[in-house]
C-alpha cells in the first residue's frame, strides 16, 4: 500500500487551512456559504477527512460535519441546505438537529428524509457553547445504524482539535518563563508534549486509513472506522489532560481559547459512542 498524501491532497489541505483562517470570526452563514461554494461538501472520503481535520482545528461553528458525514452517507445525497441524521430510535443527542434543513431517519422500510422544521427538536445545553446538540421526537419506528463515514468524520474533527490544543500548548510553553527558563525546556513538559504528538499521529493515520477504506469500499472499512473513532477518543483524552495541565491556571479560564478546542475534542469522543464502545466493537 501507499500512504502518502499526493500533491493535490496537500494543496487541498493548504487551501482549506487558509480559507478557514480567512473567514474565521465572520457570521456563520458566510462561512457556510464559502464552504458550499468551494464544493467541500462533495469531497470524497479521504479529502473530506482532510477538510474536517482543518475544520476541527478551527473549531468550526457551521453544520458542516453533520451535513457531510451524518446526513449525506445515510440519505445517499447531499441536502439542499444543511442536514443531519438520527442514528438510533431514541433520537437523542443528534448533532445540529435543531438547525438542520433536512434530517435523515433510518426506518425499518429504509431511509426517510424529513424537513427539519417538521421535527420537534429541542437543543440540549452542553459545556461547549458552540455545539448544537438536540433531542428529536422522531415520528414512527426507527432502527440503529451508524455509517462508517459518520465515525470517521468525528475522528477527523477530534484529531484537528487535538492538533490545535497541542499547538496552543507549544506556543505557551515556549514563551512562558518559570525558574528562569522557558517551560518547554523542562523534560517533564517535553515528555508530555511528545506523548501528545504520538497519540495525534496514531489517531490521524488510523483516520486516514479508515477514510481510504471507505473510498475504496474495502472489506476492512467497518473495523477501520471503529479503530479511527476509538483512537481519536483515546487521543483527545490524553491531549485534554496534558493540554490543560501544561497550560496551568490560564487554561482553566473562560477567556483562553484552549477551552473551545478541549470541549470540541471531548464532544467528538462522546458522540456516537466513546472510545471503549468502539474498542469493544472491534472485538465483536
Amino acid at each position, binding site marked *: 500500500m501507499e500512504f*502518502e498524501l499526493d500533491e493535490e491532497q496537500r494543496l487541498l489541505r493548504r487551501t482549506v487551512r487558509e480559507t478557514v483562517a480567512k473567514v474565521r470570526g465572520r457570521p456563520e452563514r458566510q462561512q457556510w456559504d464559502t464552504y458550499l461554494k468551494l464544493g467541500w461538501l462533495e469531497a470524497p472520503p479521504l479529502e473530506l477527512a482532510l477538510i474536517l481535520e482543518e475544520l476541527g482545528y478551527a473549531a468550526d461553528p457551521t453544520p458542516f460535519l453533520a451535513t457531510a458525514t451524518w446526513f449525506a452517507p445515510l440519505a445517499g445525497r447531499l441536502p439542499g441546505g444543511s442536514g443531519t441524521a438520527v442514528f438510533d430510535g431514541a433520537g437523542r443527542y443528534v448533532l445540529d438537529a435543531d438547525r438542520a434543513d433536512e434530517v435523515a431517519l433510518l426506518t425499518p422500510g429504509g431511509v426517510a428524509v424529513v424537513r427539519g422544521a417538521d421535527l420537534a427538536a429541542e437543543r440540549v445545553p452542553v459545556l461547549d457553547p458552540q455545539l448544537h446538540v438536540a433531542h428529536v421526537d422522531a415520528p414512527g419506528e426507527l432502527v440503529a445504524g451508524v455509517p462508517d463515514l459518520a465515525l470517521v468524520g468525528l475522528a477527523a474533527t477530534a484529531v484537528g482539535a487535538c492538533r490545535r490544543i497541542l499547538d496552543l500548548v507549544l506556543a505557551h510553553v*515556549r514563551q512562558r518563563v518559570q525558574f528562569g527558563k522557558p517551560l518547554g525546556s523542562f523534560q517533564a513538559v*517535553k515528555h508530555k*508534549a511528545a506523548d501528545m504528538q504520538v497519540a495525534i*499521529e*496514531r489517531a490521524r493515520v488510523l483516520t486516514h486509513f479508515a477514510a481510504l477504506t471507505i473510498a475504496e469500499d474495502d472489506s476492512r472499512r467497518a473495523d477501520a472506522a471503529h479503530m479511527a473513532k476509538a483512537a481519536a477518543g483515546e487521543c483527545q483524552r490524553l491531549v485534554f489532560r496534558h493540554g490543560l495541565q501544561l497550560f496551568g491556571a490560564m487554561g482553566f479560564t473562560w477567556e483562553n481559547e484552549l477551552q473551545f478546542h478541549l470541549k470540541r475534542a471531548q464532544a467528538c469522543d462522546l458522540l456516537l459512542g466513546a472510545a471503549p464502545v468502539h474498542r*469493544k466493537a472491534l*472485538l465483536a
Partner: protein
Amino acid sequence: MMKLADDPQVIAFRAEFAAFLDARLPAEAEARVRSRSSADVPDWARRWQRTLFEHGWLLPGQPPEYGGRDASLPQQLAHLEELAHRRIYHSFNPQGLGIIAASLLTFGSQEQKSRWAVPILRAELTAALGMSEPEAGSDLASLRTRAVLKEDPAGDFFLVDGQKIWTSGAHDADVLLAFVRTDPDAPRHRGISALLIPTDAEGVVRRPFGSIAAEDDLDFNEVFFTDVRVPRENLVGPLHEGWRVAHGSLGHERTLLWLSYAERLEDLVRDAADAGGDQEWYATLRMDLQALRLLGYRQLGPDRDPAEISVLKLLGSEAVQSAALHALEARGADALPHPAPTGPYHHMNNEAFVSSWFERYARSFAGTIAGGTSEIQRNIIAERLLGLPR
C-alpha cells in the same frame, strides 16, 4: 498518492520472494539448533544466509554484486515482511549485516568491501558493533575509547585503549566496528573515527555477561582494549569522520526499524488471542499495530523528517511492552513457570530465546532501552519535531 493496493512491482517482487522462501526455507528439524548470541551463526543458518546472498535475497536494496537486486524501499519492506510472516531471520547476525556490512558498502574502501563486507554477507565472518561505553550510551558523543595514529615504516597503525559495553555478540564475533576518539581536542562530534578491530588482536579482552532472561543468556559483552594495534587500512571512512559513518550506517536500519516492533506486536497479538478475561486491551493492541504499520508506510514517502522515526520507535516499543504486560496479566499465576510448559516458543521464531510470557515481558524492555531510551525518543520528538527549546 494514497492507496490500499501495492504497486504491481512490489506485488511481483513479493510473490517471487515468497515462492523462493516456500521452496528453500530451512527444514524445521535443522533449524532447531539455536544461535548462542547475535554473532553466533549455527551451520544451518550460515548456509541459509549464503543461499539468500547468492540468489540476491539477502539485502535486496544492495546492487547485485553485494547480494541484492537494487530493490526499492517498499520492496525491501515486502522482503522483511515475508521473512517475518515465517518467523525467520535472513541473518542471525543482524547488526553485522544491516549496520556493519551496510556501512562498509557505503563508506568503505574497495579493499574493505571485499575483505570484510562480502565475507560478512556470505556468513563467513560475523561482526559486532562497538558503540556504547560505560559513560556513553545515548550520549554517544561523550565516548572515550582512544585511538592514536602512529607512524611506522612497516605500516601506520592506531593504538587503541578503552572500553566498550553492551556489545551484542562480541564474544562470538570475528570483528568489531568500533567508534573511537581519534582527536581528543576536537569538538565532541568531530574527533571520532570508525575502526574495524579483529577480536583476536592482542590486547582485546571480551567478557560476556548474562541478561535479565538467564545467567547463561550471553549476548551482552564488555570489551576492553589495551594497547591494541590496528592497521591504518582498517579505518572506515575519513579520519575523524566517524560520526558521519555512525549516522549513515544507522540511517538505513532506522528506516525499517519499526518493522521489528510490528513483527513482535503481531506475534503477541496472535499468541495472546486466547488469553481470556477482559480483552479490551486486545483491541488497543490491534490499533497500535495498525497505526505502527501505517506510520511505517507513510515514512517511506518522500520528504519525511527523519526525526519522525522516533514517533515510530516510541509507539512501537511501548506497544510491544504493554502487549506483553497485558498478555502476562491475563494469564495470572499461569504466567509464572519458566520456561513455559506450553509457551509461545517456536523454534524458528525471531525471538530465539523466548519461551514464557514472563520472559517476553522482561525482554520487551530491550525495545524501550536499546537504541535510545523512550525518554530520549520523547526528547527528540519534543525538540526536533515540535521545536521546544533544548
